[in-house]
């Protein structure tokens, strides 16, 4: 197809452009080196000037702006105020005004296994290629599914909306494919998507999930207001283990023998969960009673 050509060509030209640009930089390195050898560093350069006279009120003339140019501390403070205004006026209402982020009752916190999976998603930098933000255009809702709502992300520490789609959006990937698809795809993306540029993630099949941190992770989430029950952190790993078993069983049905401690199991758990809460039966945007 034509765009294959266009994008591939552009990417190849970028490699060439980058190399040419860097070649220039190497010339500079050589040139600077030669220059340095031919001279000697003037480590301390002599200079002279009269000392500052006492500020003289009578001399406070000229352009009105001269006033601030003589006062560095005031300059610093006023700059802070000038930049502070925009920040405060934009950020504070988003935190304080409830209607900005209408809650959705079907949106629930991640399970411990999904949380681990999400942390691996962050660790691998999946967000550098995949967005999690379906915009309200028909072309996007057709392709990916329901567009994104503010209330869906309330338990996302950090958010993972992304800024570049080298791969497709993943907000509605949950439930789109069987577990086995993700299993094969993460091991070798081209096996499921011929021509894919995505790197393989073999190490997720060798490395085992570190479950010693589960309790601390869930506790941290609770501290930040994610509504897990008070006694949940202590039992989180039981829940995690049960969910691992479920995924291993589902993979088995498709003829895959997986070990439940593998990191990939957590990743599958997360990928199957992303953006699915909104599909639950009662999608009520519960607006606060007294806005």
């Amino acid at each position, binding site marked *: 197809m034509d765009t294959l050509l266009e994008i591939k060509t552009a990417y190849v030209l970028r490699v060439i452009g980058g190399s040419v640009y860097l070649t220039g930089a190497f010339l*500079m390195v050589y040139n600077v080196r030669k220059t340095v050898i031919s001279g000697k560093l003037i480590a301390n350069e002599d200079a002279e000037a009269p000392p500052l006279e006492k500020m003289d009120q009578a001399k406070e003339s000229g352009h009105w702006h001269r006033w601030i*140019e003589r006062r560095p501390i005031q300059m610093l403070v006023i700059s802070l105020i*000038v930049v502070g205004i925009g920040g405060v006026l934009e950020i504070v209402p988003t935190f304080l005004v409830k209607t900005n982020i209408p809650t959705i009752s079907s949106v629930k916190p991640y399970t411990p296994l999904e949380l681990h999976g999400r942390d691996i998603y962050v660790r691998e930098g999946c967000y550098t290629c995949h967005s999690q933000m379906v915009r309200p255009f028909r072309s996007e809702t057709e392709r990916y599914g329901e567009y994104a709502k503010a209330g869906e992300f309330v338990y996302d520490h950090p958010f*993972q909306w992304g800024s570049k789609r080298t791969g497709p959006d993943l907000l509605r990937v949950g439930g789109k494919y069987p577990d086995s698809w993700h299993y094969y795809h993460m091991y070798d993306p081209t096996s499921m998507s*011929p021509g894919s540029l995505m790197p393989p993630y073999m190490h997720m099949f060798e490395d085992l999930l570190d479950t010693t941190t589960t309790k601390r992770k869930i506790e941290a989430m609770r501290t930040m207001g994610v509504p897990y029950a008070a006694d949940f952190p202590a039992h989180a790993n039981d829940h995690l283990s049960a969910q691992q078993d479920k995924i291993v069983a589902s993979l088995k049905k498709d003829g895959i023998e997986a070990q439940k401690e593998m990191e990939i199991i957590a990743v599958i758990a997360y990928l199957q969960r992303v953006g699915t809460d909104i599909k639950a039966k009662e999608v009520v945007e519960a607006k606060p009673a007294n806005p």
Partner: protein
Amino acid sequence: MIERFQYDNRIVKNFLFVTIMWGVVGMLVGLTAAIQLVVPSWNFADWGSFGRLRPLHTNAVIFAFVGNAIFAGAYYSLQRLLKARMYSDMLGKIHFWGWQLIIVSAVITLPLGMTTGKEYAELEWPIDIAITLIWVVFGINMMGTIIKRRERHLYVAIWFYIATWVTVAMLHIVNSIELPISMTKSYSWYAGVQDALVQWWYGHNAVAFFLTTPFLGLMYYFLPKAANRPVYSYKLSIIHFWSLIFLYIWAGPHHLLYSALPEWAQSLGTVFSIMLIAPSWGGMLNGLLTLRGAWDRVREDPVLKFFVVAVTCYGMATLEGPLLSLKSINAIAHFTDWIIAHVHIGGIGWNGFMIFGMVYWLVPRMYGTKLHSVKLANAHFWLGTLGIILYAVPLYFAGFFQSLMWKQFTPDGFLMYPNFLGHTAGDQDGLRTARYRR
């Protein structure tokens, strides 16, 4: 009465040389990432896969290449503009070594996957704290020098340094509030929409107050020096300084247009971004017009050539930026390679070329000699310019067509290219299996 004193060039030299070194490293990593997008088998190991190298590239070029250049240029120009040696040699050394240590720890931790997952703020919390401390050291050293100055008036370059310093401190501290669960892992305190807003308030202003305002400061010092002309307009510099720093802060939401961010915030982002064209072009014009009457020198002097292209690229990026903030254009450009082209016009055009010009101007002066070869510097200039063109132009086209294909429907109202790969890899088999799977 005349006082005698000495300017400290060693600290400038140190910052300048690491600028070059990290620049090469950061761009080699960028090149590796670029190759990975052509030949996926270059994702050689878990630590060397695209998702981990891309943050390393952005952090290296922004904080190591551009960052060290800011310090080099500021330490050189502050001393001359204030007619004073830097406040403390010791603080300068702590600043220098501390910053390099931060960079080294980034080079180690990012490929290991230790990341907060927020663009340009990926470094984990212990490094965030180190950054804060070193930034304070820089601030004390700068303000200390200003206090003991021998020149009453602060030149416009210094206004930009001061504004840069306070704003970056504010942005970094607010955006980095996170809850550690171990030495190498933490969670952002904010969630979802709020996290996105804070992050792009930071992210956009990393562009504004790390890649732009300090470089305008450098431009205001080095460009008139190299051209041997006074700055074109003093009044323009006042107006554009204050309006630039006031408007820039609001613009963050233009990274979140059509997202789940509240409408009013998106609109604010758009409106302020459009207004930004005025002060941005004010700066560009003040730079270019400073060269009036010196254009014959531009043809001969590689330093001025680099500066002219740098300032022109700044003008292009800041014309394009407000356009990209229009919702209708952003709907097309967002998520595509168009943005990547925009970024690199700014990054390799404006920042890169300002730095190269500065290097060619500073090194001979600090070593009391002449540049080894003007010819080679000219060759560098042309290779660099060609590099920018080859990098950016194809990506503009690619980004544009990418988006059109994402949005194309068949006459019966189905997506023309339902398989995402239809437009990147786009082989027929891929398409067929995708249809079959649906």
